């Protein structure tokens, strides 16, 4: 995978192993001397952070599974037993519960970093698409994990979301029955969700491995969005990024620990401390916060909305249109490398698209906020407006700005803004340097 020659290991055992299975050479090449652009900022920490959270989730999840009972009569109580009777069970459960939220926070920042600095552009399109696949797998895993405690929101969230598939023509009802393992969300549903919740993380690990392999072929993008010209533009991964990633990790763990120890229920819904009851519907059924932007897109499609009537009304129900839009909002993310017509990667040198990207972020946050509101005015109108903007950004703004925008001149190399005086690029570089040392 790398052109670097295998290092000459002094330890004879390592040498013996490495000449038969070159794991040490691999680590040396990919994490030792691996060249990293030296101008990376702290937004480049989030990939490593996501990896740490993934491992944390798998480790805590496996231990929790040893105490959990996937049965409708026992699931809720078995979770409470962990909280009360299992040694440090509360700690494991709260790490796992808040870890899900942390995973999405970290991954959303990671994705937005990719969007802002153009990390999805050639030659990193496959790397980007693998990332979108990871996001989709994470959403499936998180959704099924939320069902397992068998609280009211677990049950009703599962009912609402699985019911969406019934909107698919012809095979919809068949798919829903298959998901449920019967004719309503019940014990078979809980069992298969548990099995899949245990399986999918390992699928994620597989795709993450591909994501990392692809990254190590194309190597990291950087805030200037230009390829390193040579060794003067890069530093070896170790010790430079082992140190920097560990610092980022320490700060991140403080945030994570704050939630686990001092606000563990802040991001959860209180109704999930009520055991599931198929006969009592909660006043408002809301998914976990990280699904809210997509939930808002789903709910925007109602009969009579002109966008729905023009694009879907003549061939699909509002429900189907909502489902298609929701999945479409993820698929469109995977198509971003081809929707963006600009040759310049980084928004640092794209005066118009930079603001479009920041507006997209604000719009996404508003989508998430409105997704947690009841389906009434003015929220419906806000949801519909922000849904339209989401697609408008990708389908119209992104290609259009790429054509009309005049990007700022790119520096000749990553080192140039640092070494040369004068010019706007120099200021940006100096600011970055100051931040790194702060």
């Amino acid at each position, binding site marked *: 995978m790398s052109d670097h020659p295998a290092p000459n290991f002094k330890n004879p055992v390592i040498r013996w192993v490495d000449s038969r299975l070159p794991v040490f050479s691999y680590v040396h090449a990919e994490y030792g001397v691996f060249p990293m652009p030296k101008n990376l900022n702290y937004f480049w920490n989030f990939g490593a952070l996501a990896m740490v959270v993934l491992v944390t989730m798998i480790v805590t999840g496996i231990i929790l599974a040893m105490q959990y009972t996937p049965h409708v009569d026992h699931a809720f109580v078995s979770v409470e037993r962990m909280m009360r009777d299992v040694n440090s069970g*509360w700690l494991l459960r709260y790490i796992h519960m808040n870890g899900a939220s942390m995973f999405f926070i970290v991954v959303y920042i990671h994705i937005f970093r990719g969007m802002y600095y153009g990390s999805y552009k050639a030659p990193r399109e496959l790397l980007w698409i693998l990332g979108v696949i990871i996001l989709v797998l994470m959403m499936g895993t998180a959704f099924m994990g939320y069902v397992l405690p068998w609280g009211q929101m677990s049950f009703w969230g599962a009912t609402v979301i699985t019911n969406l598939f019934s909107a698919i023509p012809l095979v919809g009802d068949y798919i829903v029955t298959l998901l449920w393992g019967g004719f309503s969300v019940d014990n078979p549903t809980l069992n298969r969700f548990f099995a899949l919740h245990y399986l999918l993380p390992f699928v994620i690990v597989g795709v993450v491995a591909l994501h990392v392999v692809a990254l190590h072929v194309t190597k990291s993008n950087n805030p200037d969005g230009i390829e390193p010209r040579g060794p003067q533009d890069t530093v070896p991964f170790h*010790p430079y990024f082992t140190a920097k990633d560990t*610092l980022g990790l320490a700060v991140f763990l403080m945030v994570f*620990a704050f939630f686990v120890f001092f606000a563990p229920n802040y991001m959860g819904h*209180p109704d999930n401390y009520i055991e599931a009851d198929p006969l009592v519907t909660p006043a408002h059924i809301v998914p976990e916060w990280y699904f809210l932007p997509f939930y808002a897109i789903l709910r925007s499609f109602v009969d009579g909305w002109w966008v729905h009537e023009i694009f879907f009304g003549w061939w699909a129900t509002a429900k189907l249109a909502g489902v298609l839009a929701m999945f479409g909002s993820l698929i469109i993310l995977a198509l971003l490398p081809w929707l963006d017509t600009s040759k310049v990667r980084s928004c640092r040198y794209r005066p118009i698209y930079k603001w479009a990207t920041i507006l997209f972020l604000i719009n996404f946050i508003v989508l998430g906020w409105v997704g947690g509101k009841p389906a009434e005015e003015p929220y419906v109108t806000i949801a519909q407006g922000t849904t339209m903007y989401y697609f408008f950004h990708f389908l119209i703004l992104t290609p259009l700005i790429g054509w009309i925008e005049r990007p700022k001149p790119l520096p000749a190399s990553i080192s140039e803004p640092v070494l040369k005086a004068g010019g706007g690029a120099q200021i940006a570089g100096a600011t970055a*340097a100051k931040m790194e040392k702060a």
Partner: protein
Amino acid sequence: MRKLGLSIATAALVAFGAGQASQEAAAASAAHPPQGDFGFTGFFGKFDRDAAQRGLQVYVGVCASCHGLDLIRYRELSGLGYSEEQIKAFAAQFEVTDGPNEDGDMFTRPGEPKDRFVNPYRNVQEAAAINGGKAPPDLSLIVKARAHGLGSIGANFLDMLQGGEFATGASYVSALLGTGYVEEPTLDDKKLCKPQPAGKSQEDWEAELNAWSLPPGTYFNKWFPGCAIGMPNPLYDDAVEYTDGTAATPEQMGQDVAEFLAWASEPSMEARKETGIAVLLFLAVFTGIMIAVKRQTWANVKH
């Protein structure tokens, strides 16, 4: 980096502001009672043992005739400062159904520390049948289950930063029992539990409230969403006789039982916070070391 960070902070602020503003506008949920004063909030918070012990008295003397506390075992009361002997004596007051024995019969015996709090009913069906079709909710997790719901991420942000925990749920329990019941509800009382529906004018709303009357078999409680609660006012002056001599007013009993139920909803909270302080201290030192390591490592790199 700084510019992007600023932009993101601005975006977050805009969204946060929008969330705050919407809290004013959102009339979808009933009013929340004012936040009570509980010992367990904050980073060093601990359950108020005295209040919780009085709350246990209220639970046993009043609530337990209709509400179960299924998730708690008598032995866990050691967390409230009771000794092993006290717990044994306490548990022994209750009759526990056990079995089957060698002859295949169920039998009763005095409670032991390992037993769960005895439920007033044999099963949910009996609980529902006796209480007009709806079983009284189990109280083991009631404080966590009644903490503010929908859209709370924006609304409870500052509360969260201060370690507010589930104080909103405890405040609800306390206010519902202590001050919620009103014999002759005024228009303002009704406004609390029946908020203005979206798209309805002030006059229409008030007219509707004035015309509204309690459904039969229910009682008016201004903190109960929808106003009509199935539970008659359970607390009156001296409903229990406190062993520590505190005057047993409904407000006092509501507050005490809320503290007790907060403990019941998460007895491990104190251990959690103690661990959390240690973890954060460790991470602060570790972060400091890593800042030094990182600066040292990058000292020779111009970037």
